[in-house]
């Protein structure tokens, strides 16, 4: 049953300062951006009654995607559609477009925000893995100041984030990766679109002239209770040539690092197996476009 609307109030601040001040109240009002997560709860009668903070009335938050110092900068209200439409994003951060176009359908893409996806902290969030693989940082603002947290350090458990209730995500900064970086993005779900993933891997790999791995990022969604960067496996791989032996070692490391979840969408055994297969596929990829060619 739908929640009882009279139990809810919405604050529409006219400036960022006003918003940050409002967030000092206890309990802090929950921000509402696209509402595509919150409204589902409202309709199901599961949204906690109380005050909500409308972000759309805040002029400072409504800014276009910018590129500064080799970084893309998303605002709090940047949507998936904004990213899909942006030619530079398409060219330099292609995994964000791959992610964006598989999220919901057009309505959700035009309404849902990257920041909302991050803060909602679903283990199956589709926007987060690509951001994390790109080493994105989250800018958190509160009345007491601004700080930046690496997205890879943002989660610590199921729905556990580094954000304090009085903080607002005011920007997401995404460094543009090296030109030669091999990028891999693959979502495995029940059907092609509008399906929550069973396993997702977003990966980046930079090889040196000697074919040794200079840098690697491996981010899994839907496998662990939160979007998970497999740092132990990255450590195994760094400095090695991604040959058969390295792949074997990496898969073995992944097997011991992952403790997959079991739910209605899949089994732990399946998730582990496919997580390993995707890793193998990524590491044996030679061209940057391979990930896209093999999606779905």
């Amino acid at each position, binding site marked *: 049953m739908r929640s009882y609307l009279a139990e809810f109030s919405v604050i529409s601040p006219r400036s960022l300062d006003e918003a940050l001040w409002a967030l000092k109240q206890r309990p802090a009002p929950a921000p509402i951006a696209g509402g595509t997560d919150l409204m589902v709860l409202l309709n199901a009668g599961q949204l906690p009654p109380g005050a909500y903070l409308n972000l759309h009335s805040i002029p400072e938050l409504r800014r276009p995607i910018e590129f500064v110092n080799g970084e893309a900068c998303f605002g709090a209200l940047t949507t998936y559609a904004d990213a899909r439409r942006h030619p530079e994003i398409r060219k330099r951060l292609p995994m964000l477009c791959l992610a964006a176009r598989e999220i919901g359908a057009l309505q959700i893409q035009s309404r849902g925000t990257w920041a909302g996806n991050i803060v909602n902290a679903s283990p199956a969030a589709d926007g987060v893995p690509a951001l994390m693989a790109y080493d994105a940082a989250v800018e958190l603002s509160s009345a007491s100041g601004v700080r930046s947290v690496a997205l890879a350090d943002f989660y610590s458990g199921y729905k556990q984030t580094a954000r304090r209730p009085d903080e607002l995500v005011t920007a997401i900064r995404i460094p543009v990766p090296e030109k030669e970086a091999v990028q891999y993005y693959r979502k495995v779900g*029940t059907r092609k679109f*509008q399906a929550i993933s069973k396993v997702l891997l977003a990966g980046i790999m930079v090889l040196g002239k000697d074919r040794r791995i200079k840098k690697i990022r491996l981010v899994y969604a839907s496998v662990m209770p939160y979007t998970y960067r497999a740092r132990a496996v990255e450590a195994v791989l760094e400095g090695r040539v991604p040959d058969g032996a390295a792949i074997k070692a990496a898969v073995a490391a992944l097997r011991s690092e992952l403790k997959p979840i079991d739910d*209605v969408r899949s089994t732990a055994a399946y998730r582990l*197996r*496919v997580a390993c297969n*995707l890793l*193998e596929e990524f590491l044996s990829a030679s061209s940057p476009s391979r990930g896209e060619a093999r999606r779905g």
Partner: protein
Amino acid sequence: MSPVKSPARPKKPARPVKSRNSAAGFKVVNHNVEKVDGICLATGVAQFVDDRKFPGLLFIKFLYSPHAHARITKIDTTHAEQLKGVRCILHYGNVPRVLHTTAGQGYPEPSPYDAAMFDSKVRYVGDRVAAVAAETSDIAEEACRLIKVEYDVLPAVFDPEEAIKAGAPVIHDEPDLRGAHDAKRNMAAHVGIEVGSVEKGLAKADHRFEDRYELGYAQHCPIEPHVCITYLDDRDRLVIRTSTQVPFHARRICAQVLQIPEGQIRVIKPRIGGGFGAKQEVFLEYVAGLVTLRTRRPAKIEQTRAEEFYASRTRHPHIVNMRIGVKKNGMIETLDMKALSNTGAYGTHSLTVVCNCGSKALPLYNKAKNVGFIGEAAYTNLPVGGAYRGYGGTQGFYALESMMDDIAEKLGMDPLALRRKNHIRLGESSPVFAALGEGKEGYDQAMASCKLSECIDIGEKEINWAVERKNHGRGPVKTGVGCAILMQGSGIPGIDMGGATVKLNEDGSFNLLVGATDLGTGSDTVLAQIAAEALAVPVGKILIYSSDTDFTPFDVGAYASSTTYISGGAVKKAAENVRRQILSVAAEILSEKADNLACSDGHVVSKKTKKKISYRNISLRSLYSRNQFQIEATESHVSYVSPPPFAAHFAKVAVDTETGLVKLLKYVMTVDCGVAIHPKLAEGQAEGAAMNGISYALTEEFIFNARGAMVNASFLDYKLFSTRDLPEMKTILVPSYEPNGPFGAKSIAEININGPAPAIGNAIKNACGVRLRSIPYTPEKVLKAIRRQSAPAAA
């Protein structure tokens, strides 16, 4: 064209074409005319159940059992009654106990009388405990929460094989139960036949095959959920406006449960947003009806999507054990099928669905001398099975057509060659037709039309069989093709009856009144085409009104692939009768013998003098001036044969051996449905059914927790295929002419839902070598099977 000269037999129908064997020459039939309700649907003018506003409408919500099996020891509605806006609460303590079946079937129904409107025992999570009618649906829901119920929780059983073992909890222990086969063993239904000797046949066979196939729960997911509104008319009769496939059965069952005469009830079916069998059930109408009778106010029940899943009706899950004996040369000699259906908490359609598992599939390979079938339906503490497009055929063909490919492989034969060698052909019959019908013995029939061989030939080319069978691609993604061949029926022989009334108006238009039920299927259009063809007028001259128990003749309703064939037969008869009346009035006017006259384009024409007289003038005369009478006829149609449509399905898949994902690349259907009255609508039926079957084969499943509660009762986690998941699909209608059908037509509604599970399964086998014997073919299952195959020692 040999006109009957004898004046002694003026009633003999004038037949413009004596013996037809093709659709050539039809003016309306076999043409893609505009759908009669197309514009009003597209513009939103057409009204569905919930599109009419009723002042003072009450909203009804249900309280459902949280337990899979429990006795209600106490029910306290005090707090709920005190909530402002609550008008009526129903539960087992205040409604009459009338055991009935909710299955809308012929009378007496072959399903057990094991359901009460509300009972003191609940039998699955989702069983109804109480209903509240209130001024708003929110109040009704809130009141449901305020009802205090105490339960004595009983042990539950979820596995049908466990349920029929001695010592299992008895789900139906009520003394007034009627019609269940053996309730003490949770056996709702049982049927068994044997032709020849199965055991001897198997013993003698060169090769024996035996395997077990499983199909799980699925829901029909019509775009419009179950919804009904009830109200009292000026004379205090109960009017039920409902999204039903079976208006007349709904009237009869509501009369039974509410204990009032049928004449006190009028059922109206407006436009409907799909049914697929889910709306062949009558389980909401009488609850709303009782609220209306008690409060004298209009009342509405509209199910949510979640309720559609756990509290309405589903496909009966089946475990099918199949045994086949073959000769070295590939001749099938023995077919033996044992099907165990899980009917859930109530036995709706339990006997007939499991019967059809055998009766639809087994005649396909009619050369078999020994045929055995045992069908059993077990009660369990899970959601209730019901009618679902395919109706047992889906389950039966899955086992049969999967095993056919295993046989072909063992014998080193091409799967198509094996099928060609064994399948039923024109003029042939199968002993199964007479031995096994729906719930009882059936009727023998010889195939009067059958283009199955042609279907196979055409599909083989279209899918590029010879090449694709051998081409699996390199890399981790393997491709392959598979096929399945199918037959179904057209109506239930000797049981299904449809009536139609045709009457002539002044302007030469005709009212066509039919009990038949258009669910979005297009049957209003198809029936209008049949009338138009018989009356030699364009479709625009036929004003069809359907499914209103006060105004239209009886019809069993839309199920069993019967409407075009059975109701269409009635329409054709009624139209031909009216045509004879028109000719005899024209004969009076023209002073000619009726036999010398013909109907053409809204006129009667003299074959001799070429004189013409319009239907308008004929009507004006018969209504106003000479020998006045209303030109009108009501005719009924029953058929003792059920001509099967035939089809061959071909699937091309890509199996990703790293993730287990199966991607359907191409789907080809070749279908013999006789003369397609409306080819576009026929193709739509074929493609809709195939998509439904594809989705069932690949993604749809009910997931239950340990307490028997469905945990994925929403479109978020119950995945239907959407248009974006559609493969390249090709539908080819292979025309034949069925002499028993109206203008050569047979059915097409159900057959094509039965192909995808076996065809895709066979394609997966061809692509990567693994044989799956249960659907859906989820990535988890496929990957597991691939792993087991590549590392048999580790299994």
